[in-house]
């Protein structure tokens, strides 16, 4: 497609479960970003990929969060042992390079019960 896509659009899970969130960036974009947005706040940076490697993962809140981008295109954000505080909208963005305009996907709304 023409834009960034994310699946699923909504995810409800139980505390302690494992979840995977997927991001398909714009074709040809080498940079990919994950953010988390809680209600009433701005997006919070989690991790940035340049190609296949994580160039900056300083925003990941703890070791329950992990992200991969094995072929330099699609990325998966993985959350282990989910907690209620993980409930948020997880946003993905891509750009042509590290300092170019970022284009955002529609987000995945995660609810941990």
């Amino acid at each position, binding site marked *: 497609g023409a834009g960034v896509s994310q699946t699923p659009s909504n995810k409800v899970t139980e505390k302690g479960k494992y979840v995977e969130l997927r991001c398909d960036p714009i074709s040809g974009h080498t940079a990919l*970003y994950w*953010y988390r947005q809680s209600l009433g*706040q*701005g*997006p*919070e*940076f989690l991790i*940035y990929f340049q190609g296949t490697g994580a160039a*900056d993962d*300083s*925003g990941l809140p703890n070791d329950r969060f992990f992200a991969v981008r094995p072929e330099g295109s699609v990325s998966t954000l993985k959350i282990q042992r989910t907690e209620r505080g993980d409930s948020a*909208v997880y*946003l993905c*963005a891509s750009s042509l390079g590290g*300092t*170019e*305009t*970022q*284009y*955002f996907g*529609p*987000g995945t709304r995660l609810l941990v019960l």
Partner: protein
Amino acid sequence: GIQVEQSPPDLILQEGANSTLRCNFSDSVNNLQWFHQNPWGQLINLFYIPSGTKQNGRLSATTVATERYSLLYISSSQTTDSGVYFCAVELGDMRFGAGTRLTVKP
């Protein structure tokens, strides 16, 4: 880390009015972007503007990098302009402000 402050936090306008949104940041940055988040949560890029002035229709933006602020101007506002406007700056990672929530009434 770098601080990003947006003002005002909330703004209510009558359709047709003009407005100015402000973004202050605490350090020199490589990149600054303005986004509009619509009521469905989609973030739309408005401007990539690390410095200077740009215009796109009824919207324009100015960034004065040496004084660490950026302004977003909305002229002849329409109800479809409603939503949250975010400023985001990049110095390594991307930091967002808390946003300005704009409501345009018919």
